[in-house]
């Protein structure tokens, strides 16, 4: 099919390994996301808490820096599980905006003009398609959550001395696990909402609704029924509850809103929402939709 000859010619060259095909989706997804300058700027902004945290840990451990800045006695010197939980909370919040902004667009663009059928007419499965798309969000959110948190953890360990690392090694696991749970949930919700709504703006709005309106609805349920079980649909609360346990926060330190919901219920709530997302994706992510008559 040479340009100058303008004749059709079959391709007989090498092919990429089958397992690597989903990475094409990831690569194009990332490049499409970063074509948007505001999105790129916001992604950079997501690293700001990391830089602040890094500076904070350094200042805490450097008498010279404290003297220069004149904060020696005013700066709280504890970088512990509370501190890391707070850091992850901030990064997760910023990451949520990142996922709500960029996630649905990756899928809705494919659905808007029916190009999903073109993807699925090629040698990739629906699962690979989904993995390709989710991996973009997973990579982005990892870069803004657990990876910087782990770097801060090891910087702290280095500055504090070896003993601290071994005493607090469990915290590294907590950082990774808590972030991975959150990333999985947020990515699945983002994809499921996009597949269902098929319109980027509506999908982003729906995501915001899930995390901001459902808590309000949960509060109303709690008030009317005089219970705490309404919090089961407050996913921010549920994941915070799981995080607090992972970071070994004591029961006494939990806010009153969390008191009525046991840990297993929080896990069940998060797993349920993930299962619902899988179900929705299975139903809707198809080359052709069949209308049941």
């Amino acid at each position, binding site marked *: *099919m*040479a*340009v100058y000859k*303008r*004749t*059709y*010619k*079959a*391709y*007989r*060259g*090498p*092919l*990429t390994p*089958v397992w690597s*095909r989903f990475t*094409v*989706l990831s690569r*194009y997804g990332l490049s*499409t996301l970063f074509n948007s300058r505001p999105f790129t700027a916001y992604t950079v902004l997501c690293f700001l808490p990391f830089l602040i945290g890094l500076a904070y840990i350094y200042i805490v451990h450097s008498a010279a820096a404290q003297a220069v800045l004149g904060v020696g006695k005013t700066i709280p010197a504890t970088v512990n599980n509370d501190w890391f939980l707070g850091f992850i909370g901030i990064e997760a919040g910023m990451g949520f905006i990142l996922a709500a902004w960029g996630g649905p667009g990756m899928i809705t*663009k*494919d659905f*808007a*003009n*029916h*190009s999903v*059928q*073109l*993807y*699925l*007419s*090629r*040698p*990739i*499965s629906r699962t690979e398609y989904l993995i390709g798309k989710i991996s973009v969000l997973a990579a982005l959110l990892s870069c803004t959550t657990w990876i910087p948190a782990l770097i801060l953890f090891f910087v702290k360990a280095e500055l504090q001395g070896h003993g601290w690392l071994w005493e607090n090694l469990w915290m590294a696991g907590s950082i990774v696990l808590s972030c991975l749970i959150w990333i999985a949930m947020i990515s699945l919700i983002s994809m499921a909402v996009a597949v269902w709504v098929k319109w980027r703006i509506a999908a982003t709005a729906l995501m915001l609704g899930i995390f901001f309106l459902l808590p309000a609805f949960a509060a109303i349920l709690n008030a009317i029924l005089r219970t705490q079980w309404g919090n089961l649909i407050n996913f921010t609360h549920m994941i915070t509850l799981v995080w607090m346990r992972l970071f070994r926060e004591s029961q006494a330190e939990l806010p009153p809103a969390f008191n009525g919901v046991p840990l297993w219920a929080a896990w069940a709530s998060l797993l349920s929402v993930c299962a619902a997302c899988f179900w929705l994706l299975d139903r809707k992510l*198809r*080359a*052709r939709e*069949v*209308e*049941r*008559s």
Partner: protein
Amino acid sequence: MSTTIEMQNLTVQLGSRTILNQLNGALSGRCIGLLGPNGSGKSTLINTLLGFYEPIAGAARIFGKEVKNNLRELRAMIGYMPESDAFIADMTGVRFVRYMAELSGLPRGEAMERAHEAFFYVGLGEARYRKLGTYSLGMKQLAKLAQAIAHGPKLVLLDEPTNGLDPEARIRMLQLVREIRDTGEVSVLISSHLLRDIEECCDQVLILKDGRIAALCNLEEERKANLKFLELEVTQGNGFLESVRGLGCECASFGAGRVRIVLPDNIDLRQIYRTAAEHEVQIRRMNYRRDTLEDIFLKAMAGAPPAALAQKGSANGSL
């Protein structure tokens, strides 16, 4: 010729409706036409061949491999141009085709090269850096064709490729299809409800009606048979028909002087005139034509039994 597509009691049900009902047949043409009225199951058959729908009974095979069990392998060999819009609006044409080619397994460099070539090949070379959302309908159709052939498939499935095209674009599209067919490196399956599209490109045609095979014809054989029909209106003449039969023609009289004659290859029209003159028969009207796909299609739609229509032009010679 080896079989491209084979169907064995292929039955597909969507919801509670049976869309394809026990299809049996082997398609081996270089360019296969899929004809039928709207809702006859053409697109469903294509979707089934792509593995989008799973048959509830029977099986479909492409190049001898069962679709159900060899989906990934077969999809790598197939290029698909869907009927509806299928593109990513804010992507440039060449990037989109490159993307699709990479998904089919081409390495980055080759995919880029083939995307450019495919765009030039379909005649959109100058528009390849424009976003697909800004393309006209005809350009979108050509871009869909480009993505279907960029990875060099062995079978190209074209679902209504001339839909919405103006006459010039339609001619261009059909010419491309013929060119692709004539390379001999790729088989083409075209679904259409436009008989002329099929007639211009295809050497075999499968006609579907209500999810069943109404006819399966080898157009190439039909053309080779080269049967010519005469429809005459003559004054009554004793012995005229017998004499014409004596020449080796098949004849049928429909009363009021209306006669249909099938002319074999070796009989010249002049001989019919001569015979008419010998019998002092006046020919008041003469309609001379070959049997067309339209005849085959109309017979199939009228509900003629598939056996009478299927295979090797057996339908054509009958009166």
